[in-house]
């Protein structure tokens, strides 16, 4: 690999531009293919189509074109997790999500909750959740988890998340709390199909009780959604 290629990949990743590194497994020759670049589509449709598909599925793979084995290495924009509510569960969740290579942002207008001491090395946004989520604009590589238990804050976040392409939306709260939440959101004109996107009560059923255990159950559900529902 040429060092220029390496630098270009890192620049693309920092600028959140999806790129596919195509390497000929015999000669070692390489080229970068951008799914957004239609010029490559015109010059080498077969390669572009395969690269675009690999990027969309987030699946690096080997393909064969004209007898050449080519490895398509997908470098996608980083996965993100937006956690609404700088509560106790958010602390282990932010940590576990970071270890899982998610870029974590905590949104909470309450400055005494969302402090860098309680949340080292993650981004903190002191904004009302609807404003905060709007500015973060969740996409297909984003998970949104609301943890505040406060309808004023959670509903504000969910109403924006539901309008986004976020691949996962989860809301903490009991079955009863969740039913009440769905009723309120229904009154905001979200239909059942839209509301079904919300995982509530949040997380896989692993009989979790402590904040760290609940964080693990949430992370398990996020990973399941990420790896099975593209």
């Amino acid at each position, binding site marked *: *690999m040429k060092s220029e290629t390496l630098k270009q990949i890192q620049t693309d990743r920092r600028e959140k531009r999806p790129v596919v590194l195509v390497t000929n*497994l015999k000669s070692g020759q390489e080229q970068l293919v951008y799914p957004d670049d239609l010029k490559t589509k015109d010059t080498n449709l077969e390669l572009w189509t395969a690269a675009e598909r690999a990027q969309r599925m987030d699946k*690096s793979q080997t393909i064969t074109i004209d007898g050449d084995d080519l490895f398509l290495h997908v470098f996608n924009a980083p996965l993100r997790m937006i956690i609404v509510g700088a509560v106790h569960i958010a602390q282990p969740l932010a940590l576990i999500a970071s270890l899982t290579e998610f870029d974590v942002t905590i949104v909470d207008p309450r400055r005494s909750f969302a402090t860098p001491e309680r949340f080292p090395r993650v981004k903190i946004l002191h904004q009302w959740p609807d404003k905060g989520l709007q500015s973060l604009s969740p996409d297909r590589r984003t998970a949104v988890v609301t943890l505040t238990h406060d309808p004023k804050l959670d509903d504000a976040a969910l109403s924006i998340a539901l309008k986004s392409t976020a691949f996962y939306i989860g809301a903490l709260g009991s079955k009863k709390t969740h039913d009440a939440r769905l009723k309120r959101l229904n009154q905001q004109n979200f239909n059942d199909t839209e509301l079904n996107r919300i995982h509530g009560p949040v997380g896989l059923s692993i009989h979790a009780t402590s904040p760290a255990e609940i964080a693990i159950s949430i992370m398990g559900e996020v990973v399941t959604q990420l790896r099975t529902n593209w």
Partner: protein
Amino acid sequence: MKQVLDMDILDTAIEWDTSGLKLAIATVIKTWGSSPRPVGSLLLVNETGEFVGSVSGGCIEGAVIQSALEVIKEEKPRLLDFGITNSQAWEVGLACGGKVQIFVENIS
């Protein structure tokens, strides 16, 4: 504990390259059956034998690093196969029963 993410591995590659070290990078390009690291996983090796990242649960790292050091010298890429059908792989111990193919190339 410093966690090493794939993003950091490429940053380390740029850092080592800029400092004049010769390097090779190994990429998992295919897996069959049970294998601990997914396709696209990276292992970066410099000429002094220092490395970051992983291409398995630790069972074949030694052999891959050895190949990487040879690739650094020869400046020619290599395709490595490890798996239960490969007797050499048993020697380096891919005990999980999976198969994995790894591409090793130098960075220039």
